[in-house]
Structure formats: C-alpha cells, structure tokens
C-alpha cells in the first residue's frame, strides 16, 4: 500500500539539482496528495462563497464544505463536530486557550468563565520538551496573571522525568500543558499518567497534538484531555488551518480572544453577545477552501489507517536509527522506546546548518536549527540539531539515501577519522 500511495504526491517527483528528492522534513510540514490539491481547484471553481451568511446556492455549497470538514475532523479525533473550532494553525489554537484564560482572569466572560480564572499562588505546568508554541503563551499567561510557571524536566533518554511529578503538579496547578509527541525527539509521552495526576489535583489539561494526530491513532475523548491543538498542514492538509478541540462545556465558557463578525448574536454600539462554540472562536471570514481541502486529507488518512501509518513510520525509524548508529561521530538526541519516525542528532565537529546543506546537495531535505525548541536543545547541550522526520510517503530508499549522504558529511568538512 505504502509503495503505491507515494505516487499520489506530485512533489516527490521534483528534482533537487541533479538528485531526486528525499523529503524527510514532514515534522515541519507534510506534502499533499493530488486529491487535496484538486479540492482547491474544485472549491474555487464550483462552490466558493461566504459561509453561514447568504441564502444563495453557492453559499449553501460552501457552508456544506465547511461544516462537513468539522464532521470529518471529529470523526478522526473523537467528539462532536461542534467541538472542532477552526484556527489558522496550532499556535493560534494554543494561544486561544492561554489568552482565553488570561481574559477570564481579568474579569471577561462573566460567571461562566470564572472557572478559568487564575492568579498569584496558582501554577501552570509545562515540560522542558515543548515547542515554543506550547511554552511562550504560558509564559505570557504567567506574566499577566501572577501565576507561576513550572516544568517537568527531560531525561537523557529524551523522556519526561516524572520522578517529581507529584510535587511539580500539585494543588496549586490550574493548567497542565504538554506535547503528545516531541517534535524533536519523536518521544511519545504518557498522556494517561499526566492526565491522571491533573485530575487528582483538579487541573485542566491542554494537549499539543501537532506531532501525534498526523502519525498515530488519537482519540481526545479517550485521552480525556480538556483542550487539544493541531495543524492541518502537518497532516496532509493545507497551510492556513489549525484545530482547537475542546470539551463542549469548557469551550462554551472560555472567553473569546479574537472578536468580530460571525461570532456574535447581538451587537449594539455599547455591547456584544457572543455565540457558543465553535463559532465564538471563529471571528471573521474563515479558511473555507482550506477546510474543504483538509476534509479530503482526513478522508485520505482514514482510508490509509493511522495504525498503518504508525507501523510504517516505526519501521523507517528503525532503519534510520540502526543506520545512524554505524556512522561515527553522530549523537542521536534521546532514545525513547515509545516514538514516531522522527530522529534528531548532533554531528560532532559539524554545525547542523552545514549538515543540512550537505544533505540538501544530495537531494535529502531535513530540518536544521532549534526546531522551535530552544530549551530542549539547551538541555542536550547544543544550540541546534539536524532532524530527519518521516511520513507515510517515505520509503526505505529515502532512509538509505539519507544515511549514505550523512556518512559523507564529516569527511566533506574534514572532520573525524577519515580526515585525520
């Protein structure tokens, strides 16, 4: 199956200079199958209109596409369609929660929002492996409310260090925000343990599902999280679209951050009443074509089967890890058992930028830098790393081309045994 579906992704036929392309940067953004691309053409040529507004026929077609996307996503991650709020990306979704709590803490949202209010003496807990998108908004919330920010450290193996869990997440904790899967290490975190502790102390749970939803079966209802966020573009979908998922009673109580058209019931010059979720978080014209395209992507993923995607990527991860182990002077960051097909590493004596440049000259696309996780890199004593990340369209040949190129990096830069 996986050999066949590679043909659905036109960009994989591109050439980089003289080399074919091996795209190992899906952790940053995924490529799109032809059917997703075609949805844009179909949408703009046949159904484009403002949704939820016009009585006219195009508006009805557009609204169907838009609401159909909600149902598709709910089918993928659990819950009802109304639990799916559209955002521009996962970052906005996480900010909507953090800033909504900020506004609740400053008296917005009335009686219903009081459950979210935090202040001095309260704590917010994150982890040391968070993407900046799930760290900076919480820092800002702490600064704005006087709550303290705490974090769970990361072990040398690249797993969460839970030895102090009970003292870090304690009775003062009002929000526990963590990533399901590390975008650098590929580690899958133990959601159950963390949710159980949060429930024990009455804390809300916010899950960053950016790197899990595209790569493995995920059900937010089963996981019993309160809010979750992910991006369409990492899951075969388009840029410009993210998802905020939440428990219904929490979504309806959280004060909106962005306000304007299509999210109100009554507006006078002095005062405004907001709609319930999902509309209350969807101010202004929404990314409708993007929703239509993402619905196609979700259909594609469901047809392939997320458990198959996960198994496929695990195989590729083994090829990568075994191959890297045989190349001298490479240190892989983390060694967690529970992982997806994402591998970050440091090349002794060669900066990640130079590693990436060399790999690119061989047609191998990887990501270099801090991957929006500076604290995690600091934890491992580096400022930058090189990351290879796989997806359902990658094959063993991609991994082998990557490994062959990687073996040449230190010799090219005159570092290590071969050069001495």
């Amino acid at each position: 199956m996986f050999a066949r579906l590679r043909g659905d992704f036109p960009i994989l036929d591109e050439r980089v200079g003289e080399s074919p392309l091996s795209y190992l940067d899906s952790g940053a953004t995924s490529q799109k199958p032809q059917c997703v691309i075609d949805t844009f053409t179909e949408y703009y040529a046949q159904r484009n209109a403002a949704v939820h507004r016009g009585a006219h026929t195009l508006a009805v077609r557009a609204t169907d596409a838009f609401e159909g996307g909600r149902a598709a996503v709910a089918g993928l991650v659990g819950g009802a369609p109304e639990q799916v709020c559209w955002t521009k990306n996962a970052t906005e979704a996480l900010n909507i929660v953090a800033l909504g709590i900020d506004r609740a803490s400053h008296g917005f949202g009335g009686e219903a929002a009081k459950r979210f209010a935090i202040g001095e003496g309260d704590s917010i807990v994150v982890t040391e492996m968070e993407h900046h998108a799930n760290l900076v908004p919480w820092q800002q919330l702490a600064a704005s409310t006087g709550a303290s920010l705490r974090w769970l450290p990361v072990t040398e193996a690249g797993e969460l260090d839970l030895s102090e869990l009970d003292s870090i997440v304690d009775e003062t904790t009002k929000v526990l925000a963590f990533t399901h899967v590390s975008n650098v290490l590929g580690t899958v975190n133990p959601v159950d343990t963390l949710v159980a502790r949060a429930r024990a102390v009455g804390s809300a749970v916010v899950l960053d599902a950016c790197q899990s939803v595209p790569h493995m079966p995920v059900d937010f209802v089963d996981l019993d999280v309160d809010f979750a966020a992910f991006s369409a573009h990492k899951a075969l979908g388009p840029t410009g679209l993210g998802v905020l998922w939440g428990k219904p009673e929490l979504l309806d109580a959280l004060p909106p951050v962005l306000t304007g058209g299509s999210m109100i019931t009554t507006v006078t010059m002095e005062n405004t009443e907001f709609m319930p979720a999902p509309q209350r978080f969807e101010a202004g014209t929404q990314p409708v074509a993007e929703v239509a395209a993402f619905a196609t992507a979700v259909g594609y993923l469901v047809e392939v089967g997320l458990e198959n995607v996960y198994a496929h990527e695990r195989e590729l991860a083994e090829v990568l890890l075994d191959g890297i182990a045989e190349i001298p002077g490479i240190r892989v960051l983390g060694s967690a058992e529970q992982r997806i097909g994402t591998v970050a590493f440091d090349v002794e004596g060669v900066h990640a930028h130079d590693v990436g440049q060399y790999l690119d000259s061989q047609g191998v696309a990887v990501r270099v830098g801090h991957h929006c996780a500076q604290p995690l890199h600091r934890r491992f004593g580096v400022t930058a790393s090189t990351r290879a990340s796989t997806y359902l369209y990658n094959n063993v040949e991609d991994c082998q081309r990557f490994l062959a190129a990687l073996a040449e990096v230190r010799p090219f830069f005159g570092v290590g045994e071969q050069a001495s």
Partner: protein
Amino acid sequence: MSTQMQQLYQQVILDHSRSRIGNSALLGENAAGPHGYSHQVNPTCGDEIELETELLEDGRIAVRWSGDGCSISMASASVLSELADDSTIEGMLKIEGQFHELMHSRGTMEADEEVLGDAAAFTGVSKFPARIKCALLSWVAFKDALNQAQTAREEKRHA
C-alpha cells in the same frame, strides 16, 4: 418559476406569514398559570422572536409571541400557535419532535400531515439548509419556554 420555490413558499406559509396567529402582547408576570418565556435570535440576519407559554388548567398550552423576521420564521411561529391551540403538552412535544426531524431531513422525509397539520407545509424548507434555522426559531423558543413553564409548575406544587 422553479418548482423548488413553490415548494418552499407554499400558499399556507405565505398566508400564515401575513395573518399571524398568536402574534399578540406578552403577559409576562401577569399570566395566570405557570408560564415560561424565551427570546431567540438568528445571528445571521438578526431575526428575533420572543415567545411565551402558559400552562392552562385543562392540560393545554397558550402560546403568545412577538417577533420580526422572514416569512418562513413568522409563518412557522403562527402555525405553532395554531397547533398549540388544539393540542395537549404531549401532543405538542410529539409535533415538535417530528417537525425537528422533518427540517433536518434535507427533503428525504415524508411529512405526516395527521400529526403536523399546517406544519407539513414546511417540508420544502428542509431542502434549503440556510432556511432551516428560520423555520425552527419559534420551535426552539417554544421548547425552551415550555420547559420553564413546567419547572414553574413543579416549583409551585412543591412550595
């Protein structure tokens, strides 16, 4: 003229939208029996309805409403009031259930005229997704107001 338009704007609907049954001053706290009140807004167009239910001695319900909206929403409120005049609470809940289902059927359901009476004329509306909210506006208000009236009666009994 397309037949879809004729299905949507049945003569019954146009008639009800002009001579509106139940469209009368609300009594509020002056209502004699246990009563409830609901205010519903259609956020797309700003259409609104205020609707009041009062539980009468004989197990029936009086409905009074006032509102501003399109022919579908006004006719729907009028038909609702007419039906309430002739029904028990149980009867109205049955009608409400069937009407709700009919509206979400996208034209695939056959209306049961025995149960729905004039409300069966709204069958065509279900093919116009943008108008379903119009047809349901008064029914949502009715269900809400009825609930409150029933709660009020319970409270009175236990007081």
